[in-house]
């Protein structure tokens, strides 16, 4: 599978490394060139030597998304730090580039729930934290 991940933060970079280890083709896009460090951290080789791709571009720049391979992507993960950026680029991936599987990280539970109803695969870390904390607190 070819997986495109936008946002090389804690979540994006960790998922990218796992996906590459699992034998997938992985491309990561981030506006901050320094975010590349997360991909090399604790690895024996650099991200590129391990077979990964990295593109520096803002998430809404179509040229950047194409350079990162969105036209070939089977899976798209929107994992920048901005909910609204993630929701917009996820819909671009879905509607414009017809990516088969689009996953989007949304911190706000309200928006995550509504956009999930609209057909996006949303992941809400806040909701997970709420559920887990409630379980532990109320145990």
């Amino acid at each position, binding site marked *: 599978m070819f997986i495109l991940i936008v946002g090389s933060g804690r979540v994006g970079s960790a998922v990218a490394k796992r996906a590459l280890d699992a034998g997938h083709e992985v491309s990561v896009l981030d506006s901050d060139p320094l975010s590349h460090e997360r991909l090399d951290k604790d690895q024996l080789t650099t991200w590129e030597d391990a077979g990964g791709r990295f593109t520096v571009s803002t998430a*809404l720049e179509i040229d950047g998304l194409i350079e990162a391979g969105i036209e070939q992507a089977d899976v798209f993960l929107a994992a920048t730090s*901005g909910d*609204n950026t993630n929701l917009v680029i996820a819909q671009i991936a879905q509607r414009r580039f017809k990516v088969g599987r689009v996953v989007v990280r949304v911190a706000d539970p*309200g928006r995550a729930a509504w956009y999930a109803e609209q057909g996006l695969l949303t992941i809400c870390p806040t909701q997970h934290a709420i559920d887990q904390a409630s379980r532990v607190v109320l145990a």
Partner: protein
Amino acid sequence: MYVIICGAGKVGWNLARELIAKDREVTLVESDHARYRVVEEELEHAVQYGDATELWVLERAGIQRADLVIAVTGDDEDNILICQMAKEKYGVQRIVARVNNPRNLQHFRLLDVQPAVSATDLILRLIEHEVPEYGLVQLLALEEEHLEIIELEVGHGSEAAGRRVQDIELPDGSLIISVLRGGAGFVPKADSVVQPGDQVLLILDPGLESQITPQFAPNGAGPGT
């Protein structure tokens, strides 16, 4: 009419002022607390503090009964999301979105956030209106209605110059609606003669420009001549 304006920057604040002066009911939503305090000094209860991309903030502002939502924050993603949720989640009939970066206009269109207004584009069009580069100025595009209005200069020695309106070969789906000559405009009849140097306004189906411009191009400039 109840209007919610998201973003109390220069655009949002002034819009709110104008609409309130016209006796509209307005709520302005601002996410920066310092800015909110400044605007509140003047607009008082008409401004609320909060992130307008959060559902509960929109609901607190009364989005369920809003007739118009205007998203004019400095962030294009925010403006897209606000308008998308206003329309699709809350059924708001009319929205207006501000485009900060004209390169993002395509995303507003893709996600059906219309009309999207870009100040850069508006200024560019004004410049073109003053200095037409190709003799064609797009004055207005009615996206929903699939119509646009363009302005063309009648070139010297062009096919159209010296002809009656009814004799100018225009494609179906286009119509000359006005002629500007010597600083004044008139609505032409079928037998009105178009002169070189006139500006003509046409209403047309989008995409017909390329069939129309050759008729008005100066002698030798049009294709096939």
